[in-house]
Structures are given as C-alpha cells and as structure tokens.
C-alpha cells in the first residue's frame, strides 16, 4: 500500500502548493487594494487513524491587531471631526475676508466712520453725504451677506449631517448582511477572511462618520454601538439613524435639544445628538463636527454679527436727536425701530438690517437727513455739523455686548468688528492645526496598521519560490511512483 500512500501524500502536497500559490496570487493582486489584509495558509499534517497521509491547509488566516484597529478608528473619528470643523469654517472665513481687506466688515465700518469724518468737515457737500449713505449701505450689505453666509454654512452642515446619516445607515445595512453571511459560513472551516476584510472596511468608514464601539459576539457576529453605548447594529437587526434636513436655516433656527425647528439624530426615538442633553451623546466623527458647526460654532458667529448690527442700529438711533421713541435711525430693522434691550429683536438683526429709506435718494429719501438727523422735518443750515459729530460719537462710544458672543463684553463697534473677523480666522486656524496634528496621529497609526496587515510583495515572491519548489518535489515523487509501477508492469 505504500506506493498508493506515497501517491496520496504527493497529491496532497500538490494540492496544498496550488492553494498556497492561489493565495499568494490573491495577496499580490490585492497589494494595493485599500482594506485588504494579507492572507496566510496555516498547514497541518493530515493524519487518518494515527497514520500520516500528507498535508492539508488547516485554515486561512489574516493577521490583524484588533486593538490597533480600534485605535485607528478612534483617532480617525477625531480627525474627521476636526477636519469637518476646519473645512466648514474655512468657507465661512473666506466670505469674511481679512480685517485689512476692503470687503471685510471692519473695513466697511471704518469707511463709514471716515465718511462721517469728511462730512463733519464739509456738512453741506452732497457728494460726501452721498458717500456716507453709500458706506452705510455697504455696512448693511456686508452684515446681510455674512448673515446669509452663516445660514448657508449651517445649511451645508445640516446637509452634511444628513449625508452622514445616509452613509451610516447604508454601512449598517451592509454590516448586518455580513453578519448574516458570517453566521451561516462561520465555523464550517470555509474561508471568511474576505468577509472580515469587508467588515473592517465598513467599520473604518463608519468610524469616520461617528465614534463607534464594536463588540464581537461568541458566534462571530458583531454588534455596533456608538461610543456612548447606543445600539446601532445587533446581529442582523439595524437601528437606523433618523434625521430630517431643514430647507432654510436662518438666525432664529435653532436645535435646542429638539425643541427648535432643526432636527437632531434619533435612534428608535432617542435623540443622541450632541446638545440634546443625552449624557452619552454622539462623540467624534463627521457627524459630531457638523453638529458643532450647525449648533455651536456658526450660531456664535451669527450672535457676533447680530451684536454688531444691533450696536450700530441702536447707536445711530440714540445719537440722532430727531429720532423719537419707537422711531428708527440710520439703520432700521427691516424698516422698523430696533430695541436692543429685547433679545428677540437682536437675534437675526444682521439678516434684516438696512439703511433707512429716508436717507436713500433711490428710495425717495433725502441726502440732507444724514446731516440734520434722520427724522428731521426740514433741512437745517447747510453748514451745521452738530448732528454729524453726534453720529461720529457712535464710533467712539464703548458699548456693552452679550457675553454669549464670546468676544469682548465692552468695546467700540469698530474694534468689535475687527475682533470678530480675527476671532473667526483664529478659530479656523486653530481647528486646522488640531486637525493636521490629529491627522498625523491617524496617519502614523494607519501606517503601522498597513505594515502589519498589508501585503509585502517581496515576502510573497519569496514564498512563491518556496511553493514552486514544494510543487516540483511533489510532482517528482509522483513521477518516481509511476516509474516504479512501470517497472512492475514490465516484469
């Protein structure tokens, strides 16, 4: 029987070498595939009834470090969050411009102040009066544009949340599908390594969207929870995230833990958005970044703009001797009087602020009101600059600001505007710095992971040589057995 045994063993050697070569070729072909991990065949001697019968592939394994994977996922989630914040602010700060730029809000306010200065020197000059009105309109327009930029950015963040939620739900569905397949093929000795690769890839992309924890259960299936412990996937059951986008987001649109018009992210009715008051809310990932942009960072910019608008409207109302109670000054709240003591009127003023139609010749107003007071009944003496000097006082007056805006609580309006522009730019730079730093941590870990899990072509080529030798040797054995049989038949 020994010849048959030799044939059998040699055949098992051939088959094993073939499988190993196939595996190596799979590794080499996927060397550059993202998320592919190196597969190795573990060999075992085949024994039947205690006798050696050749060799077999016991299992196909992949080398992964689950702790490292979790580190990479946690860090890449933080990285994605910071990058989202930095990117969101970058678009906004582009709209704001630098403090010394012509189009920036602080330059516009400085221009208005200069125009009043010139008017103080020649109050009768209609050309200068016109330039004052133009500068005032420039300030109002700049405030309007910035307010709408804030709204657009918040809208973009809102859309970003919705995109993240869609992608998370899709990933969860795919993971549920993989869980199902694993439960069927798992434990049967079949090769599940590619399924596991796919699963890791999905978990990676999921952790970019929000911070997750994944728990592997006894049967090989995974359970996905948010870092805060909210169940997203349990075996084949997916708890989808729900979110609805808001079509227009204005200054008054707030999230307020679900009480405002803006939507939060809910799972089975439980609101897990940051700011919902849920103690274990969403942390990190693009989702957290967009929530911060929509509900904290950009609303703060909105408050700062509203404070500037409110200070201007209120200052010009108070400085104008002709303006009575309930009457509007140079700047109006969309045509009406502005009450700075009423927080509801302050909110969103930067969206509505406009130059009073009474001074705008295009809207039937008269330029002389700039000199004599907005609500003056008739033109005064052409050389009278008393009111103009009072108007100039608005720029020199230190005003108290809402501490919630995060800037100085008492400052002149011009420097407050400069502070606003600088603050936003600094904030963006700070987020960008942190994102770059976090990105480098993520990169270091990812590189480590690729080195551990990825395919090294040199190694594979060296293994290939070995398999070729094994294959040739096994074939040689078969040839020898054939020669021996031939000898027997020749007898």
């Amino acid at each position, binding site marked *: *029987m020994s*010849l*048959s*045994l030799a044939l*059998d063993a040699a055949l098992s050697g051939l088959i094993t070498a073939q499988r190993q070569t196939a595996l190596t070729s799979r590794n080499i072909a996927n060397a550059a595939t993202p998320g592919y991990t190196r597969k190795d065949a573990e060999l075992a001697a085949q024994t*039947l*009834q205690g006798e050696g*019968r050749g060799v*077999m592939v016991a299992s196909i394994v992949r080398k992964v470090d689950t702790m490292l994977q979790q580190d990479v996922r946690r860090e890449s989630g933080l990285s994605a969050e910071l990058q989202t914040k930095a990117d969101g602010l970058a678009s906004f700060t582009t709209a704001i411009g630098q403090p010394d730029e012509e189009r920036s809000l602080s330059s516009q306010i400085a221009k208005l102040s200069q125009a009043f200065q010139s008017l103080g020197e020649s109050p009768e000059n209609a050309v200068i009066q016109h330039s004052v009105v133009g500068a005032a309109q420039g300030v109002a327009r700049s405030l309007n544009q910035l307010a709408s930029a804030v709204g657009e950015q918040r809208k973009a963040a809102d859309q970003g949340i919705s995109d993240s939620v869609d992608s998370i739900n899709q990933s969860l569905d795919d993971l549920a599908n993989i869980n*199902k397949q*694993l*439960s*069927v093929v*798992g*434990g*049967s000795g079949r090769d599940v390594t590619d399924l596991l690769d796919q699963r890791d890839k999905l978990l990676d992309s999921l952790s970019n969207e929000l911070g997750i*924890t994944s*728990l592997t*259960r*006894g*049967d090989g*299936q995974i*359970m996905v*929870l948010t*870092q*805060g*412990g*909210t*169940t997203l996937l*349990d*075996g*084949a*059951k997916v*708890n989808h995230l729900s979110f609805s986008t808001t079509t227009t987001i204005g200054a008054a649109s707030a999230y307020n833990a679900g009480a405002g018009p803006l939507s939060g992210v809910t799972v*089975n009715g*439980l609101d897990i958005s940051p700011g919902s*008051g*849920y*103690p*274990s809310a969403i942390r990190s990932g693009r989702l957290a970044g967009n929530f911060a942009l929509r509900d904290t960072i950009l609303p703060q910019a909105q408050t700062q703009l509203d404070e500037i608008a409110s200070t201007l409207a209120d200052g010009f109302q108070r400085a104008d001797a002709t303006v009575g109670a309930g009457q509007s000054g140079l700047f109006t709240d969309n045509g009406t009087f502005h009450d700075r003591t009423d927080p509801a009127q302050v909110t969103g003023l930067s969206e509505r602020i406009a130059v009073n139609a009474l001074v705008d010749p295009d809207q039937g107003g008269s330029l002389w009101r700039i000199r004599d007071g907005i609500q003056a009944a008739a033109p005064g003496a052409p050389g009278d600059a008393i009111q103009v000097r009072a108007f100039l006082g608005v720029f020199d007056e230190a005003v108290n600001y809402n501490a919630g805006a995060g800037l100085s609580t008492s400052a002149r309006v011009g420097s407050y505007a400069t502070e606003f522009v600088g603050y936003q730019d600094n904030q963006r730079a700070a987020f960008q710095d942190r994102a770059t730093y976090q990105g480098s941590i993520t990169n270091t870990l990812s590189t480590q992971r690729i080195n551990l899990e990825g395919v090294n072509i040199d190694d594979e080529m060296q293994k290939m040589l070995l398999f070729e030798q094994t294959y040739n040797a096994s074939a040689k054995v078969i040839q020898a057995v054939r020669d*021996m*049989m031939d000898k*027997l*038949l020749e*007898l």
Partner: protein
Amino acid sequence: MSILGAMYSAVSGLGAQSTKLGAISDNIANSSTTGYKRVDVEFSSLVTEQVSRRSYAAGGVAGNVRRQVDVQGLLQATSSSTDIAINGDGFFVVSDTQNANPQQDLTALTRAGSFTPDDQGFLRNAAGYYLMGFALNPDGTTVNPSPARDALSSVEPVNIAGINFTGAPTTAVTFAGNLPAQLANGTPGAPISTDIEYFTELGNSNTLTLQWTPSSDGIANDWNLKIFDSGTGGGTTAIYDQIVSFNDTGPDAGSPSAIPGIAGGQLPLSVNGGLQAMNLDIGDVNDPSGVTQFAGEYVPTKINKNGALFGVVNRVEVSDDGIITAIFNNGVRRPIYQIPIAIVQNPNGLSARDGTAFDQSRDSGSLYLWDAGVGPAGKTAGTSLERSNVDIAQELTSMIETQRTYSTNAKVIQTADEMLSELTQLKR
C-alpha cells in the same frame, strides 16, 4: 496411480489459480470503487490418505475466497459535505427502501459513503442505498428515548428536507459595561440606555432596553435600572425598576453592592408579555466582571445573547460522532440525525452484495449499533470518502505469481501426459 494423481492435482492447481486470477481481476476492476473491499484467495492443500510410505498419492489444492472487509482503505477528502467515511471499524446501515423499520432482507451494511440528497431529500449513496439513522430532537437526544441497538427496528432513512424552519428563543443575555460614576452624585440625571435585541419563541425580534438613570434618592452611586421590553406593553412600562447600588470604597469599589432580585448572578426576567423567561447577567454583587461604576464614560464592553431569528436550512454537516447537523441561514445549528455505526463480530464473514454492500450472514455474527467513535466503532469523517483497499502494485505482483504458478501446473499436466504416452508406447 501417481501420474494420474499428479495430473488431477495439477488440474486442481489450475482451477485454484484461475479463481485467484478472477479475484485479482475483480480487485483491479474495482480499484477505484468507493468502499470496495478486496477479495483474496487463500490456498489450502488437499491431502489424499497415504496407504503406503512407498508411494505418494497427490491430493491437490483448494482455493478459499476471503474478502478483506476489515482492512481500511485510504480516506480521501472531497468537497461534498454529505460524503461520509468511517475512520475505524464498522458500517453504515443502509436500506433499499425509504420506509422506516425496513425488513431485514432489504437492509445492508456498507462503507461506501458517497451520499447525496435525492429529489425528496433522502441521503442515498452512489449505489442507490438509503442511509439509515436515528432521528434526533433539537436538543440532541434521540426521538426514540431508547432506540434498539441490536436490531434495525429503530433506524429510519435520513431525510434532510424534512427539517426546514427553526427559531430559537433567547433565554440568556449578558451585559457588561461601565456607568459614569461622576453622574451618580445623588442628584437626578438624564437616563442612558442601550438596546439589546432578543428573539421570541416564534422567532420574532424584540428589543430589551436597559436604561440607567442616576438615582434621585439622594444617595451617591445609586442607579435606577429600568428594563423595558418592546414585547410587553409596547415597551412603555418597565418590567424591572429597581435601584442598583455600587460600592464606593474597599476592594470591591466600582462593582455593584446591591442588585434587587438577583439570584446566582442572574436577573430573572419575564419578557414578551410574560410568555418567555429570560436570565439577564449583568454581573453579580461585588463582581467586577459585569456592570461597574467608575468615573469615565458610559461604555458597554460586552453584550452576548443566545437565540436566533426564524431561518431555513442552508446546508448539513456531519461531525465525527456521526451527528448530522442542519445549519440554518440564521446561524442556528441543530442536530437532526445520528448515524449509528454497525459492528459485527466477524466483518470478513459478511456476504457481499451488489453496490459495494454486505449482508449479514451466519459467519458474520449479529450486529450491534454503536455511536460513532464509541467502543469499537470508528469515527465518521465528513467531506471524505473511503477508497477501495486494493493496492494495484500488490495485485500486479499476485497476477505475475498466479500466471507463473498456472503455467507450472500446466507443465505438470504436460509432463504427466508425456509420461502416460511413454507408457502407452511400451505396447506396440
């Protein structure tokens, strides 16, 4: 007359050698038949009583045909999960019919395990025999609590199409995690919750919600644990609502100091409208491996449960103890049949029949059905087949030997003939 005796002896030699050649040709023909057992011809001498020491009366030779049933063939791996080989002694019980408890003459024993399901789901081998086994309950016990082992009255044909659906209710859930100690400072706080899916006896998917709220009883490190069940009152009323306290000092700091209602580390729950009993393991009192409370974030670290959703059979597998397991598409594995291994006293005494099978005979002795791998019975090996135990090299060598012996016998006849003709020529 010794010459004639020698001639007859040589004729018996011719007969014996041709018998052997016949056996060799059968062996070679079946050298790749699954489960085939080689036939050997052993010779024994026939002796004529010697009347005198001065002359020799030739006797001759008789061939005894013996089948080497007890010699195992090589096992070879296949890719079909219903190919079964026996690694060790014993036989599969097979039948000609698909009826349970078949008549004795319709059953046979075989080691040819190339079984595949037929159109009705019966496992049949290449020769068409039905594989017989004991039907099993889902818990692995035989349906017949004491199946007959010394007769074939309890076996029935293995049918893998009969078992289609399954759902397993969840009876045990394990939860471990950390509760943020900084939130439980004796003042009321917002609840934190985690959902765990469980399965009802009908295979429905329900949700168990574990909700932890810093207790408002004014005592630090007390948590109000409420458990909601989507199958009980729509999940609005808690099925468990108690204060779980945690140790704040000593070696057990951070582990629970009191869990009302816990027994033996398990929290008994009645879920699904009170229809289903379930044990929730959140760790015992003073046990740091379950729920703990340390300063930090809320992190579930382990969630495990049993049970499965409704599912259909995906495939079957055979384990080495002869259990055929159905694997459902929901991941459930359920034993469906046990294949007994028949052992007879003298396997070489079995009489062969068509289809690489054997019948019991007077020489074989009576059979006994063992569990695979128990006692003298071999283990079953799935995705394997037993090859024929014929070794071509051995057969070729025997053939050469047979041919030479045959020609020598013929030479004896020729010599005897020549001697006789010599004799007849004495008289002219």
